[in-house]
């Protein structure tokens, strides 16, 4: 009996169409040097605060206070997949902080499934840098990155202990600071499009990024309709100083499909690893 088969030519074309349709919707196609899995907002400049605080630029209440516990492993260049031994973690270690830089375009993936995508335009610019703070897994004493054999990258890493600070409260009684494990303050630390650090109201952010709308959706269709109605438009909301009254800039929330189409195909080099757990940090 003839085994009925789909016309291969038709099927190949259909498959390509489906793959491209899915990729068009991809949050990963947004210009991303920060780690996917850290949430959509990571790419838009919300401050984790580590680097900025360390650099003395801007003290963000509630941000993780990172103490270095070990000498960083010297920055070295690698090609293809590699594992870097860090030695035994010192007493009190809670995490590993890494500075990762891609030297060629490509997809670079860390062992917890997070990844950094470098476009040709990123290489040699600050966009090639990714800061990375991960929790120490029991027994962990190395970090592994995987990528295609021809891709080059460099990294340095050190053991740290991380303590979450407290938020501050302004004259109006609103809390301000960084989002952290304890939740979200009333005013969230961000970097405005003009480069000025400041705060956005959580309510305004949630209104603009769809979190507020999401709570009102009664069905998935409403969510899709909202997404479609919003389209690719960027939303702008005001950035304030700690008083929550003086505007110091604007904060942009990228619309639906993102804008950069040069990212390489997304691939999972760690099929066994769970997605996410990375905490993005601001550049030093």
């Amino acid at each position, binding site marked *: 009996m003839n085994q009925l088969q789909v016309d291969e030519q038709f099927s190949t074309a259909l498959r390509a169409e489906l793959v491209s349709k899915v*990729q068009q919707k991809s949050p990963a196609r947004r210009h991303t040097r920060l780690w996917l899995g850290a949430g959509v907002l990571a790419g838009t400049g919300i401050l984790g605060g580590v680097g900025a605080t360390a650099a003395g630029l801007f003290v963000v209440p509630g941000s993780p206070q990172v103490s270095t516990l070990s000498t960083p492993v010297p920055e070295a260049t690698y090609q293809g997949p590699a594992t870097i031994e860090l030695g035994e973690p010192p007493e009190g270690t809670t995490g590993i902080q890494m500075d990762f830089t891609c030297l060629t375009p490509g997809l670079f993936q860390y062992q917890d499934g997070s990844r950094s995508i470098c476009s040709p335009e990123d290489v040699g610019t600050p966009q090639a840098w990714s800061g990375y703070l991960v929790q120490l897994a029991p027994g962990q004493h190395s970090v592994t990155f995987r990528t295609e054999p021809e891709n080059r990258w460099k990294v340095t890493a050190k053991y740290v202990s991380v303590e979450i600070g407290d938020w501050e409260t302004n004259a109006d009684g609103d809390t301000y600071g960084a989002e952290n494990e304890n939740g979200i303050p009333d005013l969230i630390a961000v970097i405005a499009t003009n480069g000025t650090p400041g705060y956005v109201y959580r309510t305004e952010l949630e209104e603009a990024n769809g979190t507020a709308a999401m709570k009102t959706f009664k069905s998935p269709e409403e969510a899709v309709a909202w997404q479609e109605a919003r389209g690719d438009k960027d939303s702008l909301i005001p950035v304030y100083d700690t008083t929550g009254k003086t505007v110091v800039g604007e904060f942009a929330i990228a619309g639906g499909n993102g804008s950069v189409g040069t990212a390489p195909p997304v691939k999972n080099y760690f099929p066994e690893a769970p997605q996410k757990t990375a905490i993005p940090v601001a550049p030093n």
Partner: protein
Amino acid sequence: MGNVEADDGRLWERSLQGEGDAFGLLFDRHRDRVFRHAYRLSGQRHDAEDILSMAFLELWRRRLKVRLVDGSVLPWLLVTTTNVARNSKRSALRYRRLLDSLPRGEGIANANDDVFLQSEMDRDAARALATLGTEDLQLVSLVVFEEYTVAAAAAVLGLSPAAAKSRVHRARKRMKTAINGALQPPPVLEGDRL
């Protein structure tokens, strides 16, 4: 099959994050079964290809609504295939331009007698299936042809297992009557020979 099916969840999750390749793998995995089901319902190769396309396009368009059953998207796809086939003219409007733009291989339709005879028989079977109501057809597709448990089919269709069971029983009887009444000798159903 169990392990392979279990991986759907992860591929689906990655698809939702915009990884086209993951969606491509789902397509590779389920393409043939969806196509055969579409063919079973339409009895025409080109129609079945269109229905296959529409089922996968709908899978993506309605992604927030998709329910995985036992970690697999296949039951949802098969139900959607049934609905699309039922409604293929109207559904096709949404995707017409895309469907027309997809290239097709040459010289496959009715190229030899075996295929011709088979396609005649399949058309008869498709007509017999067309006598079932939509819900019964969905159930029969999942339980009779695709060998899902009644419980799994009930889950994807939002029915109670007891209601699904009695519906399957009634639908089987109806289908037998339709096939036996309409055809001499009864055709070999796709589900029997695959």
